[in-house]
């Protein structure tokens, strides 16, 4: 069974997950992103790499930030962008996912940027395109269920590389709701692929998935223990609905034990950086003093996100 995101030459055809993506491809994406970061500094923030290409942002789940950064990235590459928020259009009318895709293909889409609540939905689209002989259409996963958020994982790697330069001597802690987090899964896959010797996950047992250690991470439940000596702290967003379902008692107790405060951060290395994929819940998983503090690199993450998405789009769009 071939990984559907690679073509038969092992080249990137779609970007669906970082799990199993070869290290060279990850590194190439990060290298490609570097010059794109500079484009944002120019007066004319545009490159002609995807001129004439149609990019469809297919968002079956709400998102502002991710959709916007994909849109900016595509526009900076001179592509035409169409945004579709499907929860307000055809899915409500009962059209199936693949019917939607077929219709947009008939409009000569070149690339789909897909967000969907079900794990594996972008992979289904990629497989469908392959089965129906539309190998020229590309799919980028912009977040599927709990499965993957590869461009987020990549922009996080870009950020870490920017501030820490080398992956092979780092200790990285991922804190919070790993169970429901596609971001965490992509981060873990990327960090282990890039040779980070110690990746930790920290959280209550209710928010860590079964056998998570088999993904190559060390499991901590104690925040102080887990933060000790780390170079990078990657916070995860805690969704409010986790208070239902008996996963946690209250946001207050969560904050007290696993919320990142300036105090707890002193346990990490003095030059540790703090990351968050956004949007943040201040006072739940992170204290404002940390979020706005000198160690936080949360806004650079957003800026780099555009460069990384430009890199992915241009690599896929210029095949």
């Amino acid at each position: 069974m071939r990984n559907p995101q690679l073509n038969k030459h092992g080249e990137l055809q779609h970007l669906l997950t970082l799990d199993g993506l070869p290290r060279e491809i990850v590194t190439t994406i990060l290298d490609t992103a570097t010059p794109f970061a500079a484009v944002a500094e120019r007066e004319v923030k545009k490159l002609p790499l995807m001129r004439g290409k149609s990019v469809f942002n297919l968002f079956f789940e709400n998102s502002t930030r991710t959709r916007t950064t994909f849109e900016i990235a595509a526009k900076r590459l001179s592509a035409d962008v169409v945004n579709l928020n499907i929860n307000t259009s055809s899915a409500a009318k009962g059209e199936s996912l693949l019917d939607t895709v077929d219709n947009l293909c008939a409009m000569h889409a070149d690339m789909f940027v897909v967000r969907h609540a079900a794990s594996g939905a972008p992979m289904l689209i990629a497989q469908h395109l392959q089965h129906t002989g539309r190998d020229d259409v590309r799919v980028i996963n912009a977040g599927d269920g709990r499965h993957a958020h590869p461009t987020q994982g990549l922009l996080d790697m870009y950020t870490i590389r920017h501030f820490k330069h080398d992956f092979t001597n780092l200790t990285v802690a991922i804190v919070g709701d790993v169970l429901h987090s596609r971001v965490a899964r992509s981060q873990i896959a990327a960090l282990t692929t890039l040779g980070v010797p110690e990746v930790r996950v920290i959280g209550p047992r209710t928010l860590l998935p079964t056998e998570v250690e088999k993904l190559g991470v060390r499991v901590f439940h104690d925040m102080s223990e887990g933060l000790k000596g780390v170079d990078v702290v990657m916070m995860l967003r805690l969704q409010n609905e986790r208070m239902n379902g008996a996963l946690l008692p209250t946001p207050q107790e969560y904050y007290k034990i696993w919320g990142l405060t300036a105090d707890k951060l002193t346990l990490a290395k003095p030059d540790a950086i703090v990351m968050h994929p956004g949007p943040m819940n201040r006072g739940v998983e992170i204290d404002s003093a940390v979020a706005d503090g000198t160690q936080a690199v949360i806004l650079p993450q957003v800026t780099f996100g555009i460069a990384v998405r430009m890199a992915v789009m241009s690599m896929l769009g210029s095949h």
Partner: protein
Amino acid sequence: MNILISNGRVIDPARRSDSVQNVYVAHGKIVALGSAPDGFHAERTIDASGLVVAPGFIDLAARLREPGFEYRATLESEMEAAMAGGVTSLAIPPDTDPTLDEPGLVEMLTYRAKKLNRAHIYPVGALTLGLKGERLSEMAELVEAGCVAFSQANVPIIDNTVLMRALQYAATFNFRVWLQPIAPFLGRGGNAHDGEMATRMGLAGIPVAAETIALYTYLELAKITDARLHITRLSSAAGLALIEQARADGMDVSCDVSINHVHLSDMDIGYFNPNCHLIPPLRSQRDREALSQGLAEGRINALCSDHTPVDDDGKQVPFSEAEPGATGLELLLPLTLKWAERAGVPLMDALARITSDPAKIIGITKAGHLSPGARADICVFDPHAHAIISRENLRSQGKNTPFLGLELPGKVRYTLVEGELMFDH
């Protein structure tokens, strides 16, 4: 019609016999083996040289999708599939729409099946009305209408008082109760085995405890109610261990497993293959090995197809949204042979798991064996021929199986039902 099946390797697991001999069929029955009875004149001779002659297969779970889900499959399409698969007796789970909780409905289904004159059907009645787990169905009436047992299909009863009463009531008449071990809440919303694979894929997990907790409950309640319990579709090593413990304690309980679960594990979901979305979920490789071994040693009594045709609309969606189930009637023999090959099980024992053993569970006496006087339900197959499973070759309306594209052993050549040649290939 008088039929002579000549020179086949006749394997009859019920009598532990395996030899090359002739089988004589007349008036819907097997009239003799070996030499022709006096005055026997064959109107048709089937040359079975190099082929295996076995009792027609008995499947403990085949959803024919009628009534209620005719867009997915019909009695006609699925009966054709059964004939092509050599399956001559089918137990029908009650999860139709409406459910099999009405004697009239069961009579209608039986009548429709009889008219088609293909496989014999053995309806399993709903244990509770609408499978809702609230009120008991009219079990005595349903048995009169043709039901052979009662089950909840894969809908668990939430209220243990209702479950206990249902078992007590069934035990009053010594009716069989088939229960699939699914705890009502644990693993709710899940769609894959709770383990490394589900964690990697971001699929909501169903822990093994969802099976074992249900088994503890069923076994305890069976103990105090004296119900005749059969456990359907085991998925885990721990589940099997519990059943064996209950047997060691003196309880008479049988169990079965599906063809998918002795061959596949959660690893086979691969890149979100919706055809691997099954109930119960495919579990770890260790579980699969335990089930395979348990079946080989007869600790699991029977192998079934758990035939569940789903149309493309139900499967061409993301994994978690896909309707669970796989088509299986035409894969029962190939996957039984493949399993036997892999697990080193003699052909006789392998065939027992799909003939004489399930016959005992349903309570069929006149079929499932090849003794003179038995109903002439016979499958003649080539154990050495291989075929690739493809959408085009499947007669079932459901093309949903994890085995699409795979080459499997065993091709059915002839299927006889009550002495009539129903399939000839």
